[in-house]
């Protein structure tokens, strides 16, 4: 009987300890669930590539100085194509 009681007490301690572990783990999981996962190296690489100014109009050799454009046009014997905007050349061109 004494052995049974000892075993029961030990079992109780083990169950309580297991419950504490489960509670801590679930609490931690809940906290982690509230936060956005950090950016992985793979996602960084994908987004870095996607956000690059490439292709289309970015392939062109843009001038942002009227005088430099005129000098190059005279040298290369080409006409000047000018885009005028009411804002940042990069944003609106």
């Amino acid at each position, binding site marked *: 009987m004494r052995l049974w009681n000892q075993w029961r007490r030990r079992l109780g301690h083990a169950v309580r300890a297991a419950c504490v572990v489960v509670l801590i783990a679930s609490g931690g999981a809940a906290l982690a669930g509230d936060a956005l996962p950090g950016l992985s190296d793979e996602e*960084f690489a994908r987004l870095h590539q996607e956000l690059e100014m490439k292709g289309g*109009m970015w392939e062109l*050799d843009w001038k942002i100085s*009227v005088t430099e454009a005129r*000098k190059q046009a005279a040298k290369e014997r080409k006409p000047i*194509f000018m885009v005028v905007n*009411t804002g940042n*050349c*990069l944003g*609106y061109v």
Partner: protein
Amino acid sequence: MIAREAVLNDPRVVELLKSNFVCLGVDNAANPNTTVAEARFIADKGGRASTEGMTVFTAGGKLLGRGGGFQADPNLRMLKSALEKYDPESEKDLVVEDFPVTEADRKKIQQPPEGGLVLDVTWKLLETNLLEGNSTSGGTTYVDCFADSLGVDHLWIRQDEADAIAAGAIPESVRRRISRWHLDFILPGKTEQLDLTLDGGRITGTRSNAEGDRAELLGFVNTKNGEVTRFDLVVKGMATQVSDCGFSAGLTVVKKGEKVPVALSFRLSDPNSDLRCVMPAKVRAHDYLQ
């Protein structure tokens, strides 16, 4: 933005421009990049356009074509017609002289800080399922143009700040500039906390606002002989609608009241491109470089 996406990114237009024209971008309102004399020179060649103007003229100043608007086809016709009118021999003896540059011109056309860094700042929506048209997007006509477009700006970094980054620390002034002019423009609310750690060339961090929205940051810095040779930072968070005459790119058409995933990138500008010298949108803030 619409002109850029609908006209200048048309492959036929790009191909024609690439081999036959010198391309020039002019900002005639926000951060003008023309001297007084240059503005006078282009005034009768489309230089006074109030929105998107597109013209073709010779180095000597002869107007060959006027276009503009948001359609590729009419501009393509204009370019071809201008090219037919262009006679390369007509200005073969032309020597283009520099116009006088005044002190006011130098103050107006600001140059990147000497010895500092110029970063391209770009941003894009990552999902396009919660969009709506508005007056800037011409109703629903150009919603797709905005949805797929890349927002573009610059960030300037002073030489002392660049030195600090090369030595392994991101100065408070750079963090503040990143937050104030870029994160607070693209991500909702004001930056309440920006945790940025640069450790062994790797940048990690988070940005949060008062409402608890969080964005994640990851980046890399390389240096050589005390100089920054790589600065790449990507930020991912949620965005809401931003109305700013189209400058906010895809954020222009985010459905009101909704949040859409967005990503921003900061990277060193191409030192060989003249576009590197386009001024940051907020360069005129009196404390921009502080």
